[in-house]
């Protein structure tokens, strides 16, 4: 421990032990415990106690818990646990009979303080910390603490109950460590007494009729099988699995959610999954016994397993797909459903899930049919038994159930699709068909006449939740391909959503995202060009829709439209058909108008979009109507105006990003007079109140430096590798442009900026520059002239916090000399530590706690 902290500790302990002294706030006690834990982890706790006897004295007031506030009492219990985690320190505390009186009946347990959840939580966390060695296990056995933990599993506080379960797992794991190493196959009857007691308690809970007790037992087992993979856990599962299987015989199955978690944690355990242990049968039985909404997560979990019997995977996939199958079945009965005659839906009904066949259904990945799934699966029997096939009416009985189940299914499939262990072949086409059908049901473009279809329509019409989930899933499905006709249907439904006035802003955002994904995944036509014809056609149809979205009264719609535009221009801005359609539309003009949008987010997105349009040569400056000869303000001027005057940071930051990109790409407006451009931008950016704009200004300066002086020579841009020797006159000449654009004034001033990232960026920039000019300064020797003196004086003023006047013209020689004399590495180190280093130090914490003691008034819980 730091001697300064050691000096302050007795005083702090006295404050904590004094019930009349309120403690500043609970975060202080948390941070104090963090600090003690760090010290204990790094060295001997016994030594810590011996060197700081005040800590032992501090623990004594716990013996009169009624005098202490619950949070201090909880703190002391946790501190005792941290210290007693080391066996010698544990013995030391035991000698003083302190631990039994802290954690036993004589302590807060059973007293008035016990009613506070904080104290119960502190008691559990203290025990959890100290249970690290055999002596602790003996202590637990003798103190009767295990019985208390059992009862705390049902605590009214969720946090206490959860912590109690975790503590039981911890104790069981520790008590099994020694015997398991010697005889892993020992049966539970021969396990240590403590472990037997816990297992007995779990068995009893699993047999209980009350669901909360069953849930507690299942949760404990889940935590255990998730974290402990020792061989004895297999023995335990064999021992307990019959009891778990018994739960499946009850109707309804109790604690279904916890049961699913347990079975999946067991299946994932490397110790257990390789052996049969009856686990696969239990999983199969569970799949068929649970309700669809409960079985979905289990099915997904099974399909995510690395190894699993094929039949079980097929069953799980069928369960996962059954809601979509029901939707397709219900809708194809409807004669009026658009597309019902199309190949997608036909394929969908017959093939969703357990597919046979068709090449059309196989995805782009060309998954080989490996016979993993049954080849023939009669329509309608998916997931149900032959006697009682599940129908839409049964599976999707009410609106709430229908919406919930469909959202869950779509999300599960979205998660599963990118995984390598997804079922093969992946039924792209039927899934596409299902997603499109659901979206049609939601927007009312489907008009089924069957009862079930009509019910589904009524449930889903206008349902934003399902629309969002279906659009997300549809976007993910762009990774594969379906038959051309289905892809056409996808673009058609996306266009419907993008056009519809009923689409909510969140749905529109998802529709834009899904559209982009589908456009990006469209295969390139064999004859060249960037987009296949139907995607091109789609974009042409979409462009007239976009203006409507850019004029939406909702800022989020305008913004999503602009984000979409930026992406499409970035991707297809060079493609002739797209360019032609875009220029023929109102989009560029409207985008320019949005530079003056009242919402700053939209202005920023408009800046990004205009930057992209201009980079692609798609920004045409219209002639002013009043004066045919005069041109309107150029985009560069417009963006500079935003950078200088916009009252909010987002648009100004967006401008800086566009300018930096333009400089990198040698945009025509920039290349015309790069120096002039850089000078103007830096002049404005250096004065900005937003530190991110200033930092981006330095980034632009760095790009300019790199373009002028060359890229860094090593992979680490600022590594101090010897630069290629350059003649002094050439270097001085090379630095002249930076002097002219006032880059050094900005960079040197930024070194002492009140915002750390700006100073860091400047430090990096100057280090780069110093590396580049190293040879020059070596040859020049020390330089001392009036310029150097004035620059050094200015640096001192800035360091002291004075702003002062700009430097004026600088000579390159003076800059190089000052660069060499500055301790940039030292400054970079200091900046890396940040002010947090001092503020969050243990010394600062102790000082703050001591300073606060006694001065707190009535309103210590004051807040914002």
């Amino acid at each position, binding site marked *: 421990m730091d001697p300064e902290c050691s000096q302050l500790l007795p005083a702090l302990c006295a404050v904590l032990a004094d019930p009349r002294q309120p403690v500043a706030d609970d*975060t202080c006690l948390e941070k104090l415990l963090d600090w003690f834990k760090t010290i204990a982890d790094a060295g001997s706790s016994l030594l810590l106690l011996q060197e700081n006897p005040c800590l032992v004295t501090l623990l004594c007031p716990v013996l009169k818990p009624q005098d202490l506030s619950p949070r201090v009492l909880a703190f002391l219990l946790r501190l005792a646990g941290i210290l007693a985690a080391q066996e010698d320190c544990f013995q030391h505390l035991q000698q003083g009979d302190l631990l039994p009186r802290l954690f036993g009946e004589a302590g807060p347990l059973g007293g008035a303080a016990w009613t*506070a959840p904080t104290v119960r939580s502190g008691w559990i966390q203290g025990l959890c910390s100290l249970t690290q060695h055999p002596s602790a296990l003996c202590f637990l056995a003798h103190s009767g603490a295990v019985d208390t933990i059992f009862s705390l599993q049902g605590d009214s506080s*969720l946090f206490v109950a959860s912590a109690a379960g975790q503590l039981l797992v911890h104790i069981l794991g520790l008590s099994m460590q020694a015997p398991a190493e010697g005889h892993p196959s020992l049966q539970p009857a021969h396990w240590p007494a403590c472990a037997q007691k816990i297992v007995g308690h779990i068995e009893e809970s699993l047999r209980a009729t009350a669901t909360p007790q069953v849930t507690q037992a299942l949760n404990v087992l889940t935590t255990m099988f998730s974290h402990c993979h020792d061989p004895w856990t297999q023995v335990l599962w064999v021992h307990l699995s019959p009891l778990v299987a018994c739960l499946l015989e009850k109707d309804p199955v109790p604690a279904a959610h916890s049961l699913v978690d347990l079975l999946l944690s067991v299946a994932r355990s490397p110790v257990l999954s390789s052996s049969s242990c009856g686990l696969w049968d239990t999983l199969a039985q569970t799949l068929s016994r649970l309700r669809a909404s409960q079985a979905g997560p289990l099915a997904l979990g099974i399909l995510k397993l690395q190894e699993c019997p094929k039949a079980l995977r097929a069953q799980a996939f069928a369960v996962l797909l059954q809601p979509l199958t029901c939707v397709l079945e219900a809708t194809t009965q409807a004669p009026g459903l658009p597309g019902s005659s199309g190949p997608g839906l036909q394929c969908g009904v017959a093939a969703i899930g357990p597919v046979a066949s068709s090449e059309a259904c196989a995805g782009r990945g060309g998954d080989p049919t490996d016979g993993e799934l049954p080849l023939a699966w009669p329509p309608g029997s998916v997931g149900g038994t032959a006697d009682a096939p599940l129908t839409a009416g049964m599976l999707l009985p009410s609106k709430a159930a229908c919406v919930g189940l469909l959202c869950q299914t779509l999300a599960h499939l979205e998660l599963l699709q990118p995984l390598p262990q997804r079922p093969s072949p992946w039924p792209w086409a039927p899934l596409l068909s299902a997603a499109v059908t659901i979206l049609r049901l939601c927007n009312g473009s489907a008009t089924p006449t069957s009862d079930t279809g009509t019910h589904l329509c009524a449930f889903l019409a206008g349902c934003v939740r399902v629309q969002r989930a279906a659009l997300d899933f549809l976007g993910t499905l762009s990774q594969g391909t379906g038959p051309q006709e289905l892809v056409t249907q996808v673009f058609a439904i996306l266009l419907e959503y993008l056009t519809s006035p009923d689409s909510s802003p969140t749905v529109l955002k998802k529709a834009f995202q899904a559209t982009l994904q589908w456009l990006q995944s469209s295969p390139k036509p064999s004859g060249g060009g960037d987009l296949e014809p139907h995607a091109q056609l789609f974009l042409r149809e979409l462009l007239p829709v976009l203006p409507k979205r850019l004029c939406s009264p909702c800022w*989020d719609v305008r*913004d999503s439209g602009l984000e979409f535009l930026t992406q499409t221009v970035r991707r297809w801005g060079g493609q002739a058909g797209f360019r032609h359609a875009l220029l023929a539309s109102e989009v560029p003009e409207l985008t320019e108008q949005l530079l003056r949008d009242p919402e700053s987010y939209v202005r920023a997105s408009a800046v990004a979009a205009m930057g992209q349009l201009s980079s692609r040569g798609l920004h045409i400056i219209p002639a002013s109507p009043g004066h045919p000869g005069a041109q309107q303000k150029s985009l560069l001027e417009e963006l500079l105006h935003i950078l200088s005057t916009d009252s909010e940071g987002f648009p100004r930051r967006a401008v800086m990003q566009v300018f930096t990109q333009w400089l990198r790409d040698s945009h025509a407006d920039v290349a015309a007079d790069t120096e002039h451009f850089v000078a103007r931008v830096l002049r404005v950016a250096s004065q900005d109140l937003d530190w991110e704009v200033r930092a981006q200004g330095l980034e632009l300066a760095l790009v300019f430096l790199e373009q002028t002086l060359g890229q860094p020579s090593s992979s680490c841009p600022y590594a101090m590798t010897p630069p290629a020797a350059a003649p002094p006159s050439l270097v001085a000449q090379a630095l002249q442009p930076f002097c002219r654009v006032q880059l050094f004034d900005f960079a040197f001033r930024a070194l002492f900026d009140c915002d750390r990232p700006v100073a860091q960026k400047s430090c990096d920039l100057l280090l780069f520059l110093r590396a580049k000019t190293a040879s020059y300064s070596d040859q020049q020797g020390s330089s001392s002239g009036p310029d150097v003196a004035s620059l050094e004086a200015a640096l001192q003023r800035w360091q002291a*916090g004075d702003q002062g006047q700009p430097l004026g013209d600088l000579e390159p020689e003076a800059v190089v000399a000052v660069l060499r004399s500055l301790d940039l590495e030292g400054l970079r180190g200091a900046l890396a530590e940040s002010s*947090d280093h001092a503020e969050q130090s243990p010394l600062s914490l102790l000082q*703050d706690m001591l*300073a*606060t003691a006694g001065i707190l008034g009535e309103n210590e819980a004051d807040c914002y």
Partner: protein
Amino acid sequence: MPEIRVTPLGAGQDVGRSCILVSIGGKNVMLDCGMHMGFNDDRRFPDFSYITRNGRLTDFLDCVIISHFHLDHCGALPYFSEMVGYDGPIYMTHPTQAICPILLEDYRKIAVDKKGEANFFTSQMIKDCMKKVVAVHLHQTVQVDDELEIKAYYAGHVLGAAMFQIKVGSESVVYTGDYNMTPDRHLGAAWIDKCRPNLLITESTYATTIRDSKRCRERDFLKKVHEAVERGGKVLIPVFALGRAQELCILLETFWERMNLKAPIYFSTGLTEKANHYYKLFITWTNQKIRKTFVQRNMFEFKHIKAFDRAFADNPGPMVVFATPGMLHAGQSLQIFRKWAGNEKNMVIMPGYCVQGTVGHKILSGQRKLEMEGRQVLEVKMQVEYMSFSAHADAKGIMQLVGQAEPENVLLVHGEAKKMEFLKQKIEQEFRLLPDAKKPRLLHGTLIMKDSNFRLVSSEQALKELGLAEHQLRFTCRVHLHDPRKEQETALRVYSHLKSVLKDHCVQHLPDGSVTVESILIQAAAHSEDPGTKVLLVSWTYQDEELGSYLTSLLKKGLPQGAT
């Protein structure tokens, strides 16, 4: 008895990181999603693992409701929606929706600036999170789905703060968020109708306190600032960009005007413009006095408060500077503090709470030698003052709200356990929460007779069942104008005149020739008897009563000659 389960994931028996999970009638609602400013690690956010263990967040939660824009109530929102993965709807009032991203952005910038945190939510995440927000109006019943509905009530505290009623079938919960039962300089007092929820979840920050009048604190504040400025000192007031800052600006502006003071007042964040814009935009959320005087004098257009430039800190002579952040832990406020700390004539006034570790916390606890970066020691000689302007209901206010809402049960959160215990007893004593059959009660409702049955239901419910729209009350007035021109030209003249006078309002000239100013509709018609006179029909809703009266009196004075 309905089962309503409440799980505080934060701010159960403490302050900070407000996040309460309510399960009611099979629906799960998260109330607030705040952060704790006192931690820099995972502990700053609520432990969402208690929700994620129930499956996908978006499937489990039906909605999230944010009560107001303070970070301890909304600071974890982008993390929750964009990093943990909640994709469902988020409800908040219109002002909260407008202001919340500013504070989140402010906080993000400070966190990245100060600690260089990389694994933190980005600007893009804040924006994407805000796109999931559904804004609600006060007293508007919002149908989240077929069964779940929510309704917002005015909470005072800060601009846009609301209490929310959550209702599923006949079961309901009211969550107060933070509220204030006494009006302050710019906001009104919280109000709720006698909704008799099954459960009222109320904050209890000042559970055992009867607070002195805010007027006293304001007087004290002005006196201290005045004294410091009079002796030639500089006054630093660290604030967060929006909220307290505007309240104190109004105070100083009025005082400067009254006392004819000349010392400059600066606001350093560059956000005043935006803040003022929002206060103007949401003027209906401020108190009656501000609304009343708004047309004559906009309280948020400051004559004496100017934008701060970094170079001004070195200027000689007295000045007052509002600078961010509010806890003196980074950026501009810390830089100015370091510059001014050594002069005993200067003063720093901390108007809010500071977390441990910050310079603000240290100076408030009386430390006068501070270790800064590079082991430099800063000696603080300037005067340090703490003035709490936080606007929470005190014990009396909490009791008053319980009396207004008449809940069956009360749950105290956002406070200290010990104080809650005391207040619990007081509430039990005074209200005896079990309904007393003999106690007379006032009922508001609509009696519906249908199929030989009588039912007393709320007015909203009755309207809903009968498929009727609420009747809107409008005031109308006729103003006679001497104008021989055609009606359309008169309307155009009215439009031009109002456009030039009411610069802060949305004045529109509609294609049908009528003119609108907010909800006020003006139409010009010919006089039946006198062709040289036009009749202006002015109509407005009761919400815009003040503006409507003002417009009428303005039009009665006639149109200027130049108005065309």
